[in-house]
């Protein structure tokens, strides 16, 4: 009764998914870009040609130098090497984006999972709250919270995560409701498995793929939002380099010192592009039925 009626479990689907993923050149490009960005986040400060500048060192004799061999992206208003700051800036941006998605995702998964699994009035209350939070403009909410808490890495992450969970709550609730009706779950329940065991062993594994797909698609968006907060002026504290903040500072020197803006702007684009390509590829291969 068990093995025969079970649909292929995600684990069994994965090798095929991997092959499908591997066939898509765009997804591979995305994976490559993401690997590059992650490497920068981990080792960026070590790769920077001017590590002293990353720690806040300045060289006011060399302010606003245009791109050259020594400074491929020029220097900024304090004579710091823009390339070094951009390489090191990957850490704040990627880490913040990742934290936001992880915290928001976990919260959403908990809320959606509980709502879907327990049902009844708890479901009703949680889902109404979720619907309401979906209506609140995300950026405005995040800006409000971040502005009041003041600039700083944790504050920024908290502000964004606060509005990040409703999407996951909805997704997970839907998945749980669908999973509850699948034969292997009803079977487990009929055989007397406890509620918790059913949830952990039989329902949650089915939800992994869509959550992973959503998280990877969200990473790009989260990086954009982090940069957006930095651009408004409520991001990290100096001297920590961060792309959005760098872009906001550089803006004052456009158009004559345009190079100061190019590296951080392109870095945001490349990172987000990578995560979006990867997420797209993952969705096509892991979760073919999930359309956007």
């Amino acid at each position: 009764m068990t093995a025969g009626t079970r649909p292929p479990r995600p684990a069994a689907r994965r090798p095929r998914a991997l092959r499908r993923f591997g066939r898509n050149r765009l997804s591979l490009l995305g994976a490559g870009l993401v690997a590059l960005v992650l490497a920068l986040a981990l080792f960026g400060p070590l790769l920077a040609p001017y590590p002293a500048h990353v720690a806040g060192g300045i060289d006011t004799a060399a302010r606003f130098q245009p791109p050259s061999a020594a400074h491929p992206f020029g220097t900024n208003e304090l004579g710091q090497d823009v390339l070094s700051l951009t390489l090191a800036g990957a850490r704040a941006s990627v880490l913040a984006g990742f934290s936001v998605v992880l915290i928001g995702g976990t919260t959403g998964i908990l809320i959606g999972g509980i709502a879907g699994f327990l049902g009844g009035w708890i479901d009703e209350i949680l889902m109404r709250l979720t619907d309401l939070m979906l209506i609140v403009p995300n950026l405005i909410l995040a800006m409000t919270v971040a502005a009041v808490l003041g600039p700083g890495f944790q504050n920024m992450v908290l502000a964004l995560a606060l509005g990040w969970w409703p999407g996951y709550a909805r997704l997970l609730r839907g998945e749980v409701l669908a999973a509850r009706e699948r034969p292997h779950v009803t079977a487990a329940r009929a055989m007397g498995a406890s509620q918790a065991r059913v949830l952990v062993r039989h329902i949650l594994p089915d939800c992994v793929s869509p959550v992973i797909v959503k998280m990877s698609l969200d990473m790009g968006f989260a990086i954009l939002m982090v940069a957006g907060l930095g651009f408004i002026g409520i991001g990290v504290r100096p001297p920590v380099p961060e792309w959005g903040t760098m872009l906001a500072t550089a803006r004052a020197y456009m158009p004559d010192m345009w190079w100061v803006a190019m590296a951080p702007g392109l870095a945001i684009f490349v990172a987000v592009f990578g995560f979006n390509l990867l997420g797209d590829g993952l969705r096509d291969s892991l979760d073919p039925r999930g359309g956007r």
Partner: protein
Amino acid sequence: MLRFLFRRLLMLGPVLVGLTAIMFVIARLLPGDPVGLAAGPNATLAERAALAQEFGLDRPVWDQYLSYVAGLARGDLGRSLMTRRPVAEDIAIYLPATLELVLAAMALAIALGLPLGLLTALWQNRWPDRLGQVLAIGAISMPRFFLGLLLQLVFAIWLMWLPLGGQLPVVTLPPPRVTGLVTLDAALAGDWATLGAACRHLALPALALSLSPLAAILRMMRASAIEVMAQDYVTAARALGLPRRKILIKTIGRNAVSATLTVIGLYFGWLLGGTVLVETVFDWPGLGLYATRAILSQDMMPVIGVALVTGLIFVAVNLAVDLAYGLIDPRVRYE
């Protein structure tokens, strides 16, 4: 259908109340010193206390919330702590500029997204299609504020074709206010010079804002067109010798509209709340700049007001979209 509409409209009340409750909780539970910010650097303790009392900030949060909701019923959104002006009046001034920007961006996205989506579907998996896919993902990945800066750099500074920012040249008075949308008002007044100037100012911010809905429409259009082309009845119709083009236009046309509607519904609210960065770059006097100013001074009434209005418009647009589905597709039933 009327019953559906009635029920959905009835839901607006609780949505409003819920939305204000959320914003209130967030706005009031945070630390921060809005009164200190508004009272200014030289204010005495007594002046701060007086200001707090004037704005009811010395009362308990639930009490403030109840009077806010009571005011809401009269269309009163409270007063700004910084400017002491009624928030509802301010929003009435700034909302049209944002609406104009969002409408222009959506129009652009639809006008370009639909045909491009269809074309890439017809060329499925050939190089223009692949290029289109990459460009679409690229468009979604482009930070709008960076794109805005680049557009300014190229079109306003190097080429000098278009203005740098703002809604109209400073010395031009806005046309008589009818709708609040400057372009529309100028056209209504027959003031073609102002209309031209307004369009030139609108071009770059609208372009910067339109890119991600454009990509979304393109992708959705492509996906649904491909789906349609694979349908049994299309194959059948083709087997019966009906010209392919006729089938495509008829079935795909319907899909095009519903794809567009879906995206409009999704993006409208999102763009309304997301113009902040583009408005900052282009100095566009809209709701986003208004909200930013209020947020940076922790002036919560305008922030709650903006969240409320954008939330409401989002809900309203989605309701309209749901209704429109029914008009287009008789298979849709309202329950």
